[in-house]
């Protein structure tokens, strides 16, 4: 029987190429559209500039040029200077380091802690789930800003503490999302099929559940990173983030707000940098999310 050509197989061979791939193949990347790639391009640009800031021919962000105070853009200072003669381009690029570090690491920590706990809650159910969800709900109902203030006030205003503080706020969010996704997945037949091959619960979680919930968690991570960057900006603006000698978008804006009527560019440039970065994260995240949803809908 197996020697005969199976009509079913021929159909499969023809049908296969027209099916969308689960991985990000070339065709899939094309479907993401130009907006997505523009967003990714901006994020890449900011990322590269921030990472290589100390190698770039930039002025020191903390050394004033007293010959040009609160000057507009010029050949010497591409984006001008602030009230004490600090180069804005340099400060914005160095400031991107803080914003991106906060956005990236707080979300990664939140994901690394929240997602496994959520998957465990959703897979094992019962008392474990009840306990985890109670803690998560309590954390969610606690005002985030107060918690951030509390952590920075007690443990000091260092970058690491800011990252940890924001990560703590995002843990319950990832926990809930991972649990919700796991609840659905645990009912799927391939999980049962994996158990029928003798896989233990932990193995099922790692091999079957994790790879299937990760895309939506990472996608949500992009959106959450945008929120984290805005949160850090707000803390910075209030002087509650890293000390002012480390430039951040938030403290550049705060520093320029006295001169906002005479020199609005000082506030405008860092605001635009933050806006574009947050917007790009949202657009990219939203695009990926809708693609994953479409795939899930197709089952």
């Amino acid at each position: 029987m197996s020697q005969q050509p199976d009509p079913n197989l021929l159909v499969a061979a023809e049908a296969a190429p027209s099916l969308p791939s689960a991985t990000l193949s070339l065709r899939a990347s094309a479907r993401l559209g130009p907006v997505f790639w523009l967003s990714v391009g901006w994020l890449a640009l900011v990322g590269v500039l921030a990472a290589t800031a100390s190698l770039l021919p930039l002025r020191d962000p903390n050394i004033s040029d007293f010959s040009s105070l609160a000057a507009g853009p010029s050949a010497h200072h591409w984006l001008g200077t602030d009230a004490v003669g600090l180069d804005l381009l340099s400060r914005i690029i160095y400031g991107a380091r803080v914003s991106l570090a906060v956005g990236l690491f707080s979300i990664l920590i939140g994901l690394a802690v929240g997602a496994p706990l959520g998957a465990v809650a959703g897979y094992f159910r019962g008392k474990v789930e009840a306990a985890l969800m109670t803690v998560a709900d309590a954390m969610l109902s606690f005002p985030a800003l107060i918690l951030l203030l509390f952590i920075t006030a007690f443990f000091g205003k260092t970058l690491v503490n800011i990252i940890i503080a924001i990560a703590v706020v995002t843990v319950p969010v990832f926990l809930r999302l991972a649990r919700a996704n796991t609840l659905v997945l645990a009912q799927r037949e391939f999980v049962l099929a994996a158990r029928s091959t003798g896989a233990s619960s932990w193995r099922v979680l790692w091999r079957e559940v994790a790879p299937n919930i990760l895309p939506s968690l990472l996608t949500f991570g992009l959106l959450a990173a945008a929120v984290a960057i805005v949160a850090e900006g707000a803390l910075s603006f209030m002087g509650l983030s890293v000390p002012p000698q480390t430039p951040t978008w938030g403290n550049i804006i705060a520093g320029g707000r006295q001169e906002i009527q005479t020199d609005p560019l000082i506030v405008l440039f860092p605001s635009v940098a933050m806006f574009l970065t947050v917007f790009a994260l949202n657009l990219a995240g939203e695009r990926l999310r809708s693609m994953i949803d479409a795939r899930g809908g197709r089952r």
Partner: protein
Amino acid sequence: MTAQSAPVLEMHELRTWFATPEGPLRAVDGVSLGVEPGRCLGVVGESGSGKTVLLRSIVGLLPRRAIASTGGTVCFEGLELAGAPPAVIRDVRGRRIGMVFQDPMTSLNPVMRVGTQLTDGMRHHLGVGRQEARRRARALLEAVGIPDPERRLRDYPHQLSGGMRQRVTIAIALACDPSLLLADEPTTALDVTVQSQILRLLGRLRRQRNMAVILVTHDMGVVAGSTDDLAVMYAGKVVEQGPTATVFSATRHPYTRALLEAIPRADARPGERLATIPGQPPSLVDPPSGCRFAPRCPRAADRCRAEEPPLAGADGHRFACWFPLGDPEPPAAAT
């Protein structure tokens, strides 16, 4: 042929009750069945008759918190599976008992390559290396009739058709050379031409490997051609069992005959009414006293509604009916 070799699997009075707010739901209520090496036992019944729960009870694949109570014994190759510790059952699952599920579209992990899913079990249970697992996976895919196995190992499930996927799930079930294969409606989600290919494949693999198969289905057409023995389930109980040919030719239980009459026939005239069974299966929370089929049975008499008939008979053909077909009509048959 029947009683030649010792059964691979023997269930005795197996019972699985689920917890519901209304009380225990008797999904499987005292089922005794067995299957010998190289033979195929068909379990038929309509939806909700407990056949899938029966299959999953054997290997403990039911949500533990949903179960109100269990009972009976499941003896598999001398090992008692009912009530065995999870680690023991896990070791049996996949290695000595393989399983195939209904819908090949959902029983494969969409984000893992076929090769990974196929080699996982072997590497886990048998401890074979990556290369050796890969080699065996190729051989398995060839055995289940998939051409160009090397390429298929690198494919994701969505790149395969339904029939191919079911062949892959069969290959996964066979990966550790089990002595028993549990197939839960393996052809229901496939179209008819593919159905017969898969059934023939299962038959061929069973004979080649001298493997026992329990085939659960609601399709009498499927059991007719591919099983040696047959058990008809109704409302959590076996109502008739015996060699498939005997059950078909000398049907004794009215429910079995009703199922046989409900098979759509290709030579039926257009517009001809399909035979159906009036009424609905009884509630398994509060089953009727007496015979559970009595409320829908055309031959039911007072005794049927009062006393539960035992599963009895001769020559391996057993049935649970007070007034089986072939016997005279019951005295007070209300027709």
